[in-house]
């Protein structure tokens, strides 16, 4: 198979060319590292206007036994609280892994307040009752959280913010505790005084279901259809010397992955030019090969190299900088494949236009940097561009690739329709440019 023979040879040639490997693999990693160390923790993060409620969930849950049937009734009240909070408009919930981390964040002023559910929270809440022997958490301020084995850690220097969070906590607790206590009380009333009392109460309070144990049930209202948004706390500045896990790597890695994917232009251009200049193209043309075989033999190894570069940077990003591949890691593959296709297209066009290695270096670098600049990838984050420029930048393949990566790596709930659209546009860019390059390329060097 001459195509395979050609492809194997070119892959060998590029693989042994240290300059190519440095440009494609080492330089982007170096830039990511330098920028990762030097940029602030807010880089690459969109400002979120919603009120953030940070919680630590140490609740061990509680299993109640039905006194009549003996059936086990498990409770995990802290989960219900978080869900209730997260479904509240204008609020987002952030879960912090440990009490120590929460205390550190509050002490350092990174969080105004953190709501902690301790181990016996569910047991205490399950035992809340207006009846004799029950736990009564209600006091003059609303709910005494300590009674429920919960607390609010507060930063004394951020009184306003921490008070707002404390009030939200009170509101949520009341919304959960009150219907639970009322419902249980009326359940007992029914059991002890007869069902006719319950029937009477229903007639007296038709807008309420006094036996319900949730706020929605009690008030006979429709539960909120707001999606629960609970995120796990990630230290934005990352950990260790490399700031591993810092949020900015979710932007930096794909940004430089995309920018350097198009540096393939230099490698492919040089492969064609050196083949012409050193006379080996004469040998290829004299051999019983078609133009398609020669071009395909060059296309395949460089495309493979480009895909390898993309995957390498994603793996390196994960290993070196602890970046996350998001919730849909498999979708990264079509993005890598379509980005490489568009890079190959651009590379073929430059290879067709350049006749010497200097021309490859000049045209190639100019094109790559101009497109990177126009797409915003040189800025590190496309979102830093003005809205109008962001629209204009969609004329570059870089912009589509960056948008796809942002969806998958830096968005809590990636919209796959956007990713699909980006991949389709990148493929169209690739196919279009490959066709142009294919037509323009002269194997005899007389372009």
């Amino acid at each position, binding site marked *: 198979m001459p195509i395979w023979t050609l492809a194997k*040879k070119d892959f060998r040639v590029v693989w042994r060319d240290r300059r190519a490997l440095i440009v494609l693999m080492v330089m982007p990693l170096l830039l990511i590292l330098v920028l990762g160390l030097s940029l602030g923790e807010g880089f690459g993060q969109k400002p979120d206007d919603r009120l953030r409620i940070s919680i630590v969930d140490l609740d061990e849950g509680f299993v109640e036994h039905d006194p009549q049937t003996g059936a086990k009734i498990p409770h995990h009240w802290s989960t219900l609280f978080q869900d209730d909070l997260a479904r509240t408009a204008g609020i987002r919930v952030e879960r912090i892994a440990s009490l120590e981390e929460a205390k550190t964040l509050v002490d350092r002023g990174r969080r105004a307040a953190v709501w902690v559910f301790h181990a016996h929270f569910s047991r205490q809440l399950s035992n809340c009752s207006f009846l004799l022997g029950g736990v009564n958490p209600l006091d003059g301020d609303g709910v005494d959280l300590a009674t429920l084995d919960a607390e609010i850690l507060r930063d004394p220097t951020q009184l306003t913010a921490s008070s707002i969070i404390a009030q939200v906590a009170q509101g949520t607790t009341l919304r959960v505790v009150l219907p639970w206590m009322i419902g249980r009380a009326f359940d007992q009333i029914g059991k002890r005084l007869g069902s006719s009392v319950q029937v009477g109460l229903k007639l007296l309070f038709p807008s309420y279901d006094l036996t319900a144990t949730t706020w929605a049930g009690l008030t006979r209202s429709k539960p909120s259809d707001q999606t629960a948004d609970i995120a796990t706390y990630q230290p934005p500045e990352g950990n260790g010397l490399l700031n591993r896990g810092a949020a900015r790597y979710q932007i930096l890695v794909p940004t430089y992955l995309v920018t350097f994917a198009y540096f393939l232009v230099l490698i492919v251009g040089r492969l064609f030019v050196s083949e012409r200049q*050193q006379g080996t193209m004469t040998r290829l043309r*004299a051999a019983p090969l078609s133009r398609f075989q020669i071009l395909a033999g060059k296309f395949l190894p460089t495309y493979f190299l480009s895909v390898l570069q993309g995957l390498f940077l994603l793996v390196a990003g994960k290993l070196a900088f602890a970046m996350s591949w998001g919730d849909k890691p498999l979708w990264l593959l079509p993005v890598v494949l379509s980005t490489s296709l568009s890079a190959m297209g651009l590379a073929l066009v430059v290879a067709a236009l350049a006749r010497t290695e200097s021309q490859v270096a000049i045209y190639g670098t100019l094109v790559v940097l101009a497109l990177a600049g126009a797409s915003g990838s040189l800025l590190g984050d496309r979102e830093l561009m003005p809205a109008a420029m962001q629209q204009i930048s969609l004329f570059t393949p870089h912009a589509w690739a960056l948008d796809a990566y942002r969806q998958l790596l830096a968005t809590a709930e990636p919209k796959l329709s956007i990713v699909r659209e980006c991949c389709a546009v990148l493929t169209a860019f690739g196919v279009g440019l490959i066709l142009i390059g294919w037509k323009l390329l002269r194997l005899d060097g007389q372009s």
Partner: protein
Amino acid sequence: MTCPLVEVVDLEKRYGATKALDRVSFQVAEGEIFGLLGPNGAGKSTLVSILACLLEPTAGEARILGRPANPADRTLRRQLGIVPQELALYGELTARENLEFFGGLYDLSGMVLGERVDRLLAATGLVEQADHAVSTFSGGMKRRLNLGAALVHEPKLVLLDEPAVGVDPQSRAHLFEEIRRLHQAGTTILYISHYIEEVQTLCSRVGIIDHGHLIACDTLPNLLQLLEGLIQFRVSAITPELQSQLSALPETRWSETPGNQVALHCRDVKRTLPRLIAALFQTRTELLSIETIEPNLERVFLHLTGSTLRD
């Protein structure tokens, strides 16, 4: 001539207003080493490109193995081996990898390819450097490998375009040895050069090309016969007896120059020289100095074109 393997008839190639080849016609027999001699820019490389199916002629025809040399004819290209003027090799690859790659282009693989590569490495004297990157090779080693790369697929016609440019004597000897081995094996060779010595050493027939015209094409002895040999000598005195003896020498003409010097033009220097010595002896003439100039391709070229080959 036996059945021609290469037949070029009224071949023309124009680049705009420039005529690179102008009605060139010649034939090369199967198994022959044909030399094409000409200065830089004479049209040699254009001719090679057409014969290698890389270029289409503007007019006329070149036929190889009875088929028109056509860039679309991949079957014909399979029978050709070309050694370009440049060192057409991959510096990043080893000698073995280069040969394997070029063999692979002709669908060679496995044992057959391995054996041919080993044989060519031995033939080009590169066994010890087989697994070294070509970029580390000397110019001579690269030239030898450049030849080897054209032979992996055992072509019927080998086009050698200045294959020995800038090589050391040892590498040149290796190259010539391999070319002679090819010739003995029956391969037809078209040897293009602007070095007369190379063509004179290797080729049985020679074409001389200049400004796109083939100005002569014949066997080497026939070409040399276009010129006379010259014996220049100085004697103590040119006596009437000596003049008479010189005039009697067959197939010669002579002229006297000041200082008792004589220029004796002859068809065959080797035959005339003993006769001249005998004449001098008979006339008791003292010979003070003598110089012989035999016809060679350099002088033939000068004679035909009015300029030296390296002008």
